[in-house]
């Protein structure tokens, strides 16, 4: 980057807002998908919308690609830097700007950590419903960009259902203020389109989110199963019976053992093959009736034991185990590949089995902890990234699992996004015409394709070309014809 551009950027964000030295930039080399790494040319940490817009205008003039970044917990490489690109982080945009309890919304800066929102509005009896397991670290901006899910999204829906407004800084550095929360958009639903766009349409600096009243009653159940199959089949039957708990999660034996050996120990029985963790929320009588509907299904599938959390503390412990599961997996191997696929909920058992087989036959250690109620599987493969052969086998297993999901009418990702990881697999699910339509939206909003280039859309399928050369070279795959 030339000196003049650098100086202009520095004068906008000040010393605290610029990360230029190599050692500090190392921290931004990857997100949670550590298999992909790239050194950003520069990292900018603007304080607000105005600083962001001014930086974006400078970068626009200089033709430099931009990668938005929240907390970097993404698991698909969405926040992986691009060669010669600048990463713009939201780490200094951490203010809750407004909580409006009567109209049930909050306006927060993009760098606010997910859980901080619920904390900020708890005194009003309200909470922010989407609860990714990473909620103590991930930002609301990252959640919007990925359309993040979480255990309780079974009842409440993913992020997109809860975003009422946005302030977006466009690739050209314009500010699009859609922050006023109203029921329906004035024209096209730009907010819905932006949500889940993986940082490719612009950078969100402020988010208006819907707040949800805390449920009158909650019951947390832990059902212990003698087999993973039985746990999966129970879920299929709960869905078929149209019962509507708020969260339905499955943890398998390896996961349980890792959790129980970690600081997240929740009291799950370590000899169980699988546990089913359920939250049932709503009015007291509604909860009671739903539990009555669920119990016989669990019994029919041979649950060994059914525990019900006695108080809020026990409930929290049970959930802390679930939400800490990925972290706990560090005990099994140094690295974890978190697959994220979706299947129709009638096919849960079949695909969980298949994923296990794909890993077993490649000599890989796989564990399962997933949002079963939504059909959103997370086969987690533990590995050591220093072993190139093992890395190859992990990726091959990941591809086989994705293919199997697509074959039964499933999908590549339920919440982690496509990013770099699943870019090539997009062609399994979408035709060139489907991808071309997505590219139409992209070029409309970022004609130079400078926002998070080289992500999500497979490069050859949509014939991505750059209108300007990227200073500092391209990713190897981007250079392909």
């Amino acid at each position, binding site marked *: 980057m030339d000196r003049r551009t650098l100086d202009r950027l520095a004068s906008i964000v000040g010393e605290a807002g610029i990360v230029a030295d190599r050692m500090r930039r190392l921290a931004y080399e990857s997100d949670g998908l550590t298999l992909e790494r790239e050194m950003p040319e520069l990292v900018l940490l603007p304080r607000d919308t105005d600083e962001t817009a001014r930086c974006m205008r400078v970068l626009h003039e200089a033709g430099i690609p931009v990668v938005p970044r929240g907390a970097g917990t993404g698991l698909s490489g969405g926040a992986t830097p691009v060669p010669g690109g600048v990463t713009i982080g939201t780490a200094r945009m951490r203010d809750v700007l407004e909580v409006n309890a009567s109209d049930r919304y909050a306006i927060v800066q993009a760098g606010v950590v997910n859980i901080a929102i619920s904390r900020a509005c708890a005194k009003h009896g309200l909470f922010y419903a989407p609860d990714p397991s990473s909620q103590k670290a991930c930002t609301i901006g990252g959640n919007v960009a990925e359309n993040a899910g979480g255990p309780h999204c079974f009842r409440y829906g993913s992020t997109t259902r809860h975003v009422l407004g946005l302030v977006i800084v466009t690739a050209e550095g314009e500010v699009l203020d859609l922050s006023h929360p109203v029921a329906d958009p004035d024209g096209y639903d730009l907010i819905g389109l932006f949500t889940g766009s993986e940082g490719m349409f612009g950078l969100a600096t402020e988010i208006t989110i819907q707040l949800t*009243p805390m449920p009158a009653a909650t019951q947390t159940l832990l059902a212990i199963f003698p087999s993973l199959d039985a746990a999966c089949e129970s879920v299929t039957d709960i869905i078929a019976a149209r019962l509507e708990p708020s969260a339905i999660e499955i943890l398998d034996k390896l996961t349980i053992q890792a959790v129980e050996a970690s600081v997240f120990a929740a009291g799950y029985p370590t000899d169980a093959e699988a546990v089913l963790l359920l939250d049932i929320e709503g009015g007291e009588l509604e909860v009671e009736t739903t539990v009555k509907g669920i119990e016989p299904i669990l019994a029919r599938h041979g649950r060994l034991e059914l525990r019900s959390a006695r108080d809020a503390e026990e409930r929290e412990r049970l959930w802390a185990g679930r939400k800490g599961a990925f972290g706990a997996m560090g005990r099994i191997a140094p690295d974890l590949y978190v697959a994220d696929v979706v299947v129709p909920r009638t096919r849960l058992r079949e695909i969980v089995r298949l994923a296990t087989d794909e890993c077993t036959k490649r000599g890989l250690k796989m564990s399962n902890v997933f949002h079963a109620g939504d059909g959103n599987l997370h086969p987690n493969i533990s590995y050591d990234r220093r072993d190139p052969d093992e890395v190859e086998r992990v990726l091959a297993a990941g591809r086989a699992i994705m293919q199997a999901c697509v074959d039964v009418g*499933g999908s590549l990702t339920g919440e982690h996004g496509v990013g770099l990881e699943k870019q090539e697999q997009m062609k399994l699910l979408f035709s060139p015409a489907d991808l071309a*339509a997505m590219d139409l939206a992209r070029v*409309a909003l970022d004609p130079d394709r400078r926002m998070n280039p080289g992500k999500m859309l497979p490069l050859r399928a949509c014939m991505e070309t750059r209108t300007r050369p990227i200073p500092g070279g391209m990713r190897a795959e981007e250079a392909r014809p």
Partner: protein
Amino acid sequence: MTESGSALAETLARDGIEVSHEGAYPIAAPASEAEVVAIVERAARDGLKVLPIGLGTKLDFCRPEAAEGACDLALSMRKLRDVVAYEPGDGTLTARAGARMGELARTVLAGGHRLTPDVPHPDEATLGGVLGASQSGPDRTRFGPVRHHVLGVRVVRSDGTIAKSGGRLVKNVTGFDLHRLYCGSRGTLCVVLEASLRLFAEPEREAALTATYPAARPALEAAEAVRALPIAPLAVTLEGVDEDFRLHVFLAGHSEQVRWEADEVERVLGDAERRDDEGARCHRALVRDLGRRNGRWPAFRMVCLPSQLPSAIDSTRDFAGARGLQPRFLAQPFAGIVDVFLPGDAATEPESFVALASELRDLLAPAEVRLDPLAVPAAVHRALARTNDEGPAARWMTRLRESFDPAGTFASPLFPCRA
């Protein structure tokens, strides 16, 4: 009717595509996806404008016939009406765009499911039309807008290619959510061929409570008291005119819970008429159908924060009253949406109507109440649209429209924001 439009209609008819000539432009009703593609391709080639429609019940929303030369041909999806897949085990439904909402609701009811949105006159509303207009029904109180429940779509683009977005799964973030963009795009970006929706459980029991008030404000205060209860009503609707307002609260769910909730609501509302089960269902349909009165949609929709609703209604009532008009209101208080029906003769004089609409919009704007025109003359649409013409949001919309439809094949000239 444009000359080129009737020439196209003739060619299509020769090719065996059904074409009727009832209104201001010919209406082609293709019987297959291939015919849809053929119509779009042909129109694109000849530089003609096509308006995708269902049964045409919501054409008021964009009134193309009033904008000279804005539409050469309407493309009605009414014949493509089959259910593609109802998956009771997965709680999803995929149907073609011409399927009637009422028929779809009955299909999934057989498997114990409920479809949202519960739109007015569901047997006259097609799935494609509902999505295109992003229409909701009173059940929006519980389920939110329809765009939240569209899982995926297949569409024909302006160049005749078929493209899909999303899928049939209840959770899926693969690719951009173009289906959300298409929802509410009023046929300006593509023709929707089929769509998949998430379904909900058919409730065990329903209840309805209705209380009467001499004005909107006390009714809205009662609604606020209901909102403070630890319950999630299926629908809360306020309707009325002058000094005669009614608040309807609809409850649905497990039997015991609904019974308890109905007692709670009754306690809060005081003197309320209570209906159960079949009575409640019938009443719900009745109130739902008020969304279109005597074949007419409301003139305006006001969109605002729920807390702004009382003043929005009062201001509108006073403003109209001073002009000798008595507007009728139909509101979804929890969502901050109020539909305004004007007496039939208010719409006769376009010029004074434009003045009235513009003044009303200016009156409401400081409180951030947005006034959207629905069933009004095109001149009113244009007058209200102009202010949105500037700014980055309008630019993004324009660019999207130009990107998806570079030749301007899809007609709906008054949407999203240009006259």
